[in-house]
């Protein structure tokens, strides 16, 4: 589904990613962990198509196509979804408008009929229940005045509406209370099937109790320095990153 080969990325002249290799197959869950500033969000943003990041070397194939060649909207329409670490507030763009446009743009790209306002609202309600999204939040502007946790929930709500093939969840767990964490994890699991895949970026093993990964990777200094099964997450939880840093010559 996704194949990243020797990816180097610069931002404002600084090299952040220094040779990432990663293969994600349909049905898999990958967790990416790593200390602050190691490049996890950079990787997520590059995959989503953020323009300020410059790929200086390497390639990324998604569903057999060159991902780096696509505009952000094209990637999204082809099923790539990024749950942002810091979702932006967009005053003046009503939530419902935004969500309906996003859903219909996806449908249009697949050659499906666009949903009418009535159809969309019905569809939206089913998804709201799924992630326990409060109705009053959909009456506001996108993320405007949402609490930290509400913003994260809103990301998963959008994911539920767009039903992506590859979801990248960048620290979706941080800021969520324990109940919300369960709800969100439940939502993510409910959306899983053998045809889609998830990359979970997180700092805490806790989330991985609910969303059980097939692979855990440690991103450090712009590289994936360790990959293993879910037991690696426990080890990191227990020991922190010092031993990883030592292993990598610090």
């Amino acid at each position: 589904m996704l194949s990243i080969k020797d990816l180097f990325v610069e931002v404002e002249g600084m090299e952040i990613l220094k040779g990432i290799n990663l293969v994600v197959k349909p049905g898999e869950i990958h967790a990416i962990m790593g200390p602050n500033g190691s490049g996890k969000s950079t990787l997520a943003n590059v995959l989503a198509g953020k323009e300020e990041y410059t790929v200086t070397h390497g390639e990324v194939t998604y569903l057999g196509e060159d991902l780096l060649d696509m505009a952000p909207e094209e990637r999204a329409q082809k099923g790539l979804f990024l749950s942002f670490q810091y979702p932006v507030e967009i005053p003046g763009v009503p939530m419902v408008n935004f969500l309906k446009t996003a859903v219909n743009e996806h449908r249009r790209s697949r050659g499906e009929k666009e949903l009418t306002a009535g159809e969309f609202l019905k569809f939206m309600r089913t998804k709201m229940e799924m992630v326990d999204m409060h109705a009053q939040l959909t009456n506001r502007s996108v993320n405007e005045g949402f609490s930290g946790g509400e913003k994260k929930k809103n990301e998963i709500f959008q994911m539920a509406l767009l039903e992506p093939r590859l979801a990248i969840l960048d620290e979706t767990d941080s800021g969520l209370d324990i109940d919300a964490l369960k709800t969100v994890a439940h939502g993510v699991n409910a959306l899983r099937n053998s045809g889609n895949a998830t990359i979970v970026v997180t700092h805490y093993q806790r989330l991985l109790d609910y969303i059980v990964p097939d692979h855990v990777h440690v991103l450090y200094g712009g590289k994936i320095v360790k990959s293993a099964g879910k037991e690696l997450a426990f080890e990191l939880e227990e020991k922190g990153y010092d031993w990883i840093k030592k292993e990598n010559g610090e």
Partner: protein
Amino acid sequence: MESNMSILIENTDVSLKYAAHYNSVKEVLFRNSAEEMNAHRKKALQDFITQGIPTRKNENYKYTNLQPRFSSEFRYIHEREPAEVDLHAVFRCDVPLLDTHLAFLFNGWFYEDNSKIGELPSGVILDSLENVAHNNPGLIRKYASLAQTEDDPLVALNTAFAKDGYFLYVPENTTVELPVQLINFLQAKESAYVTQRNFIYLEEGAHVKVISCDHTLNLNHYLNNSVTEIFAGPNANLEYYTLQNQHNYTTSLNSVFIHQEKDSKVTTLNSSLHGGLIRNNLKFNMDGENAEAFLYGMAFIDRKQHVDNFTQVIHGKPHCMSNQVYKNVLDDESTGAFTGRIHVVRDAQKTNAFQRNNNILLTDKATMQSKPQLIIDADDVKCSHGATVGQIDEEALFYLRARGIDEAKARLMMMNAFAYEVIQQISIEPLRKRINELVDKRLRGEVARCHDCAYNCEC
């Protein structure tokens, strides 16, 4: 002294032309006009000559060069001329469900066949200023007292030439349920200079909403110099919406003066959707405690269009509140300016005065000048101002695109969102919807006319 001299010399030609013109049409100006209006002409002309057509050296007109506009050749309209067509037949305001007391103005004159005003509440007057000045001069005793000729040459010139416009009077404790709608048409066979003079008088506790729409009906060049005086009595409530929708060969100069008594509330909201050169002067004089003023404005311009909003809010009494929000989207080589002056006089304690001007430039060639001017002579005052000139928020744009919304659509959503803060202040729902649609069309780059375009023009 020396710099004054040079202003005078630079000004001389075109300003003298207007002074000479006054003398040549003096008889027409005085004929058929009531004494209440004629009494001001001479001084107005003198005040005009002293100031002249503003050059950029005039601090208040720094960003708008009016000299070339006034230098054009015009036919000056100083007399009521019958409209050659039945305006009701050629024009229908097609905003769905917008039910209003509707009156037309034709080249500055109150249309003689205003058959759609409908039934107004008892005592409410909506008529020609000229008529009221003749028949009920007591009602216009404040004429030319809110708009001071010595402070502004355009006001002086308007007062020297003024013959007609609309007059709206709402008596004590009277609420006009339906909005009063004025449609100001420009239509002449040749380039024309138009003067319009309006007066709105709200007695204590009067409530009314006014919608004023500017339209051009053909492609000739126009210069319209209008002045509107608004008196809001104690506890009066006025909403004053202006919609500017004229073609690119129009120079639209509008000076609005608002006097507020205690506990009154006045909201103005101007939408510049189309026009060649637009200059809006909006001056509030808050002359009673607990008055509230809301000043909203938005402009969407492209090509070589120019919009200059100049506001002045004088907080003359304690415990008043004013809030200004002006937003502009500038495309192509268009140019814009905003000057917002807030003057809190001595002893106007507990004043709240806010001002914000946000602008989006869509190209490198579009330019915007933004200048707040705060003069605060009281000490217990909350005052804030802020101006931004920038591009669309890239982070937000990426967020929308990352959800599959293509770039052009995402940009449009962002621009609509930008304007929405002002649009949502329109309390007349059908009008809000229509303006929202027009703004959306305008932002898409389509011609957003308020009516069926009779001329297929590129403007």
